């Protein structure tokens, strides 16, 4: 369980994270979404006690990171920036970490095996590809077999095979009852991996919800309709309260009415239908809609603040 309460971080004048509160529960994969620079990495660094918040706090299993007795046993993290000395072998990197928390050295071989780096364990990490470096970071996160895991953009630099591997790993970890908190840019990837999402924009919480709810609530849901008599059909649908748009390809996009109702109306008018296809919003679309709102809102509030100052 990870809890953030009123987390705020400023770098000079720049507010990176503002009054951010959310809860990440065990047993599910929780995605952490937000546009570039929205404060995801900063938030994760604050949870890990690396950056000191200006206000608020984060707890892991109810305790501040600094108060954990055996940090590696309780939380593992793969953070955004590389955290490995290029001159050190993968094994030595894991060994120096294991020793801090009195982990048995055989655990090093276990995690190396798990991420598929056994063959190159004694090679210097500086010679690793981006993907291998990422796997070593994941091995380090899993070293203490922790119940809470944070991954900042874990699929960065991985090929499709690697991406699928990470996806299954995250789901597996969650299924074992662990708390899994993962940030990503690939919204489509999150749709496949995460159950819950925390969405932020400009350092503020936009929503904390499930993936299903996020896509369901989006206004991007529509039904695509093709017919030889679009004009007649459009008129009838609009009379019944649907929002209808004529697309470039001659099809209609109907919002605010489900496929069944559209089909019934068409039947009553004796209009042929060549296509009647409901489209769920992709997570990507839902996400864009949400964060756009937040940016607009922020723009307005900045403007009114300036107005106030001028009076």
């Amino acid at each position, binding site marked *: *369980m990870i809890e953030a309460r009123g987390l705020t971080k400023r770098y000079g004048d720049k507010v990176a994270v503002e009054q951010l509160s959310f809860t990440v*529960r*065990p*047993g*599910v994969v929780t995605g952490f979404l937000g546009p570039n620079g929205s404060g995801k990495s900063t938030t994760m*660094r604050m949870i*890990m*006690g*690396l*950056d*000191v918040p200006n206000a608020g706090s984060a707890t892991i299993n109810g305790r501040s*990171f*600094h108060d*954990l*007795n*055996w*940090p*590696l*046993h*309780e*939380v593992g*993290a793969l*953070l955004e*920036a*590389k*955290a*490995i*000395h*290029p*001159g*050190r*072998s993968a094994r*030595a*990197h894991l*060994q*120096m*970490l294991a*020793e*801090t*928390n*009195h982990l048995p050295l055989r655990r090093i071989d276990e995690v190396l095996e798990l991420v598929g780096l056994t063959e190159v364990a004694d090679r210097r990490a500086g010679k690793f590809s981006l993907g291998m470096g990422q796997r070593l970071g994941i091995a*380090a996160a899993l070293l203490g077999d922790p*119940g809470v895991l944070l991954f900042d953009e874990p699929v960065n630099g991985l090929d499709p095979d690697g991406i699928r591997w990470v996806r299954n790993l995250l789901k597996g970890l969650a299924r*074992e*009852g*662990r708390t899994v908190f993962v940030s990503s840019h690939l919204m489509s990837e999150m749709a496949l991996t995460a*159950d819950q999402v925390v969405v932020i924009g400009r350092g503020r919480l936009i929503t904390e919800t*499930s993936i*299903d*709810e996020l896509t*369901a*609530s989006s206004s991007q849901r529509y039904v695509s309709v093709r017919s030889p008599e679009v004009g007649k059909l459009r008129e009838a649908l609009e009379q019944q309260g649907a929002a209808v748009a004529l697309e470039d390809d001659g099809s209609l996009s109907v919002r605010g009415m489900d496929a069944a109702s559209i089909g019934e109306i068409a039947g009553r008018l004796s209009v042929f239908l060549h296509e009647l296809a409901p489209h769920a919003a992709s997570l990507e679309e839902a996400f864009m809609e949400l964060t756009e709102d937040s940016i607009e809102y922020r723009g307005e509030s900045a403007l009114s603040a300036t107005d106030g100052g001028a009076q």
Partner: protein
Amino acid sequence: MSVITVPPATPRERSLPPGRYGISGLLRSEWTKLRTVRSTLWSFATVIVLGIGLGALATAETRAHWASMGLGDRLSFDATRTSLIGVFFAQLVIGVLGVLVVTSEYGTGTIRATFSAAPRRPLVLAAKTAVFAAVSLVISEVVAFISYFLGQALLSAPATNTSLGSPGALRAVVGSGLYLCVLGLIALGLGVLIRHTAGAIGAFVGVLLVLPLIISALPSSIANDLQRFLPANIGSSIVSLHPGSHNFAPWTGFAVLAVYAVVLLVVGGILLVRRDA
């Protein structure tokens, strides 16, 4: 609207070992860090080879030219200091090593892995300091003793040499190893404060080599009072049989040097807690 299915939250049953992570694990970890990077091993090898080699070179040279040396030169010849001359080279390498022990962690980001495993930063600094101090002290003392014995053997008659029983000789040999070690800790402290390799090495070299030039350019009434506080002068006083009149006595100087190191490390430890990693 689809129904939100909330998967059951099942916290894993898991028992943690008793107690808490602490200094013993951190000491082992820092030792692993030190010996698993090749550049560290090379630097220590350089300290040993050149530290001993330069002393041997200087003493052999003196022996070769003894016959042509004037009486004044022969009388003021300090056999102990000459055999230990490699210290003044080794101090630069030890300084760079001390800086790197900290700044390479910042440069590579390893510091975030370290603090994610052990968030009590002053404890990490203590372990780092202790391991580096122990290793550099052992190596420095080995270099000092071998340099000394090798140098005295090379200064065979008619050149004058000393033995460990000679007044001040043992102090100079043991002291030069201690001097190198504490200088390394000063460099480590600068590394914690500055966090960037180039900047910290620059500061270290500045204090050791540039500051003396600046002070010697001051009027001698001021310079004479100030220069005894310079690490380089303290080192010179420790390594020589007869410290110059403007210098601290060897152990007094050493105490001053130790205070520098402690102050830098304590301030560094405080900043370490306050700053973002």
